[in-house]
C-alpha cells in the first residue's frame, strides 16, 4: 500500500481525507486506484495532475514505478511559459 497525499482543496471530494491509501506499483495504477477509491477524483485527474515521487515530479508518465514506502504527492499539472 502507498499513502497518497492530496492537496487540501481535494478533501471535499474524498470525504475529508487528505491522505488516501491505495495499492499501486506505477503512476498509472495509482491514478486508477485513486478513482476506484474516490470516484469524484476523476474530475481533477482529468483536469491534469502530476505525481511527486520522493520529491521528483512526474508530469504525465503512467509507467513510472512507485517504490515501496515512497512519499507520494498528487499535484496539479504544472504549466510554464
Amino acid at each position, binding site marked *: 500500500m502507498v499513502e497518497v497525499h492530496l492537496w487540501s482543496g481535494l478533501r471535499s471530494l474524498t470525504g475529508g481525507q487528505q491522505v488516501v491509501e491505495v495499492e499501486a506499483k506505477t503512476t498509472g495504477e495509482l491514478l486508477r486506484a485513486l478513482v476506484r477509491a474516490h470516484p469524484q477524483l476523476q474530475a481533477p485527474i482529468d483536469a491534469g495532475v502530476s505525481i511527486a515521487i520522493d520529491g521528483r515530479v512526474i*508530469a504525465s508518465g503512467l509507467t513510472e514505478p512507485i517504490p515501496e514506502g515512497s512519499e507520494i504527492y498528487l499535484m496539479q499539472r504544472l504549466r510554464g*511559459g
Partner: protein
Amino acid sequence: MALDDRKTQFTFVGTRPDRPDGLDKVTGRAKFGADISAPGMLHGAILRSPHAHARIVKIDTSKAEAHKDVKAVVTRADFAELPFQPGLEGEFWNVLENVMAGEKALYDGHAVAAVAATSALAARDALKLIEVEYEVLPHVTDVDKAMAPDAPVIREGAADYSVPEGMHPNIVRYHESGHGDVEAGFAEADLVIEDSFVTEATHQGYIEPHACLGMLGNDGKGELWCTTQGHWIAQKTCAALLGIETSQLRVTASEIGGGFGGKTTVFIEPVALALSRKANRPVKIVMTRSEVFRATGPTSSASMDIKIGMKKDGTISAAQGVFRLQGGAFPGAPGDMTAMCAFAPYNLTNVSQIGYDVMANRPKQAAYRAPGAPMGAFAVESVIDELCKKLGLDPVDVRLKNAAHEGTKASYGPTYERIGLVETLEAAKAHPHYSAPLKPGQGRGISCGFWFNHGGETSVSLALSEDGSAQLMVGTPDIGGSRASMALMAAEVLGIPYENIRVTIADTATLGYNDVSHGSRVTYASGLATIKAAKHAVEKLCERAAASWGIPADAVKWENGCAIPSGPNAGDFDPRPLADITAHMGQTGGPISGHFEATPEGAGVSFGTHIVDAEVDPETGKTAITRYTVIQDAGKAIHPTYVEGQYQGGAAQGIGWALNEEYVYGDDGRLQNSIFLDYRIPVASDLPMIDTVIVEVPNPGHPFGVRGVGETGIVPPLAAIANAVSHAAGVRMKQLPMSPPRILAALKDNG
C-alpha cells in the same frame, strides 16, 4: 527516468562557442514570421470588437464580400462547431472562442470577423464594410470587482469541480494547499504582519508580432508557417478548430523574435487557414502592435493578501496567502501556480495558500515566463522584508535561516530533492554588491524566487553523415539559444567538434510530437533527448566497429570520439574515429542515426536570489535602478553565455514590470495604451549593467545536471525592486507598477 550515468567532467559543455544562428540574424537572412510570401498570396485582416462585453446580434459581411479586392470573409460560422469531433472541449473550445468570438464579444479587441484581400491595405479597408450589431453588456476588468456579488457574469458554467459552492460564476478554479496549523504558528510569532498587494497585467512584449502564412485546400491538406513556441500544438489546435486531420496540416516554425510564454497558443493561425480554405489561396496575417496588446496574452493581474509571523531570531512561524488572479474572459489564470510557488523557498512548519482563477473582460491571459510566480513572490517577499526591517534583522540572514534545502517539506507538499537555494543566498551574501555602500536616496532590496520547471513530450532525431558531421533535428523552437546548447550536448556524447553539428528545428511532418518550448524545458528535455539520441547513435557506431574487428559489440567502448576495444578479451585494435566509421557506413549496414521519443520526467526545481539597488527622485517619483545582481542555480550551465542572457533578460523584464508596464483600462473597458509609446517597456538607457552569478547544483534528473533557467529569473525582480524602492522612498510600495505618479502619491501619503 532513472539516471545511472551522470557525467561531471566535460569537454564541450560549459564552453562559450559562437551561436549557430548569429550570422543569419545579424545579416537579415534569418526568416521570421512575417518574412515569407507565396505565389497568389492574399493578406488577411481581423475585425475586432470595440466593446469590452457585448452580445453579437448580427454580422453583415455582404458589402465586404462584394468588394473587388476581397476574396474571402470568415466569421465564427466558418470554424468547426461543437461537437464536431472528440476533443473540442475544454481548452480547445476556449481557444476557438478566443480566436473568433461566438455569441458574445468578451473583451476590447476580441476578433469577430476576418477578411482576405489582394493587399494588406485592401484587407484593412474591407473591414470597415463589415457591419456588426452589438448589444453592449455590463463589463468588469478588475479582479476584485469581478469576484464581487454584483459583478456581471462573463460565462455561466465555466467553473470546474474545484470551486466551492456559492462563489461568483466568474471564479472558475480554486486551489487550496499547505500544511501545519497557521493559527498556532501566528500565536508563536513575536511579530505578525498582514498586508495586501496588487499587480497590473503586463505584456510579454516580444519584439516580433504574431505573423503567419496559411494554406488550406478543400481536400483538408494544409501548410502553415508561423512564429510560435510550439508548432505541434499549433498543428493540433488548428486542425481541431478547422475540423481537419492533424497529420494533414504541416506546420513549420519560423525564427522567433521572442515569446516568453506568449506564443504558446494560436491566435491568427486558424483564421489564416479558414480564409485560405474559403479563398483557395495562401493567406498571410501579420498583427499590428496594437492587436498584439489588445488580443494576445498579457499576464494575469493580481490582488493578494499575505500574513506572516516571525520570531525575534528571524524564524518564520507561520505564513498564509490568498492570491486572486484575473486571466481575461477565459479560465486559465494561474492562481494555483502562484499559491504553490509563493512560499516555496522556505522551510515552513505552518503554511496555508489559496489561489483563485477569476474571469474578467480582458484578453485571455498567457504565460509570461514563470506564470503566476512573480506576483506571489512580490507580495510574500515584501512582507518578509518588512518583518526584517521591523525586527532589525539582515534580510539575507533571515532567508538563509528559513531557506528550503534537500529534505525540506515544500510548501506545496513533497519533500525536496537536492536544490540550490542556500547556495544562491550564500553567494548573495558573499557578493561585493551586498556589502557595497549605498548613496543617500538609494535603497537595496533582495528577494528569492522559485519555479518548478517542466519536462514534457519530446522527440529528437540525430543523423550522421559520411564525412563524420552530424545533423540534429529537434522540435522545440529556439527561443533562448537552444541550437547552441543542443549542439554542445551532442558534441559531448559523440566526441566531435561543436561546429560539425548542425541543429535544425524540424517541422511537424519530419519529427514526432514535441511539446511547446515552455516551462524552461528545452535545455532540460530536448537536451536529455539529444543526449539519449546521440548515445543511441554511439551504440550503433560501436556495433560497426565491433563487426569490423570481429569482436562482440559489448567489447567496444566510445571515448573521445573513437570506438576502442574494451575489456580483457577484446583484442588489440587501433581506435576508429567517428568519421572513419561513418565513411564506410553505406557498405557496412546503412545509415547511422539515433532517436529519442518520450517524456523526460525529472526536471529539477530552481531557485534564484536577486540583489537590487534603486534610487528614487522625490521630486518626480522616477526610479533609477543603479545596480542589479542575479544569482541563480542552473544545475549545469551548458552554454554559460546563454544562461547569463536568460538571467539578464528576466531582470530586464522584471524592471519593466515593477516600474512602468501596465495595462490601463478606461471606464468603458477599452485598453488605453496599446502601443509602445504609451506602454513603456525598459530601453537600454533605463537599465544598469546586470551582473550574474551562475550557481551549479546538479539536477539529479538530467544526465549532465541541467535545470531549466528561462523562467526563474522573472520571479524575484518584482519583489527585489519593490524592496529597494520602498527603502529608498521610505514608504512600503504595495502596488505595481511603481510608476512615478504612484511613488509621488505614496510619498505624499507618507507625509
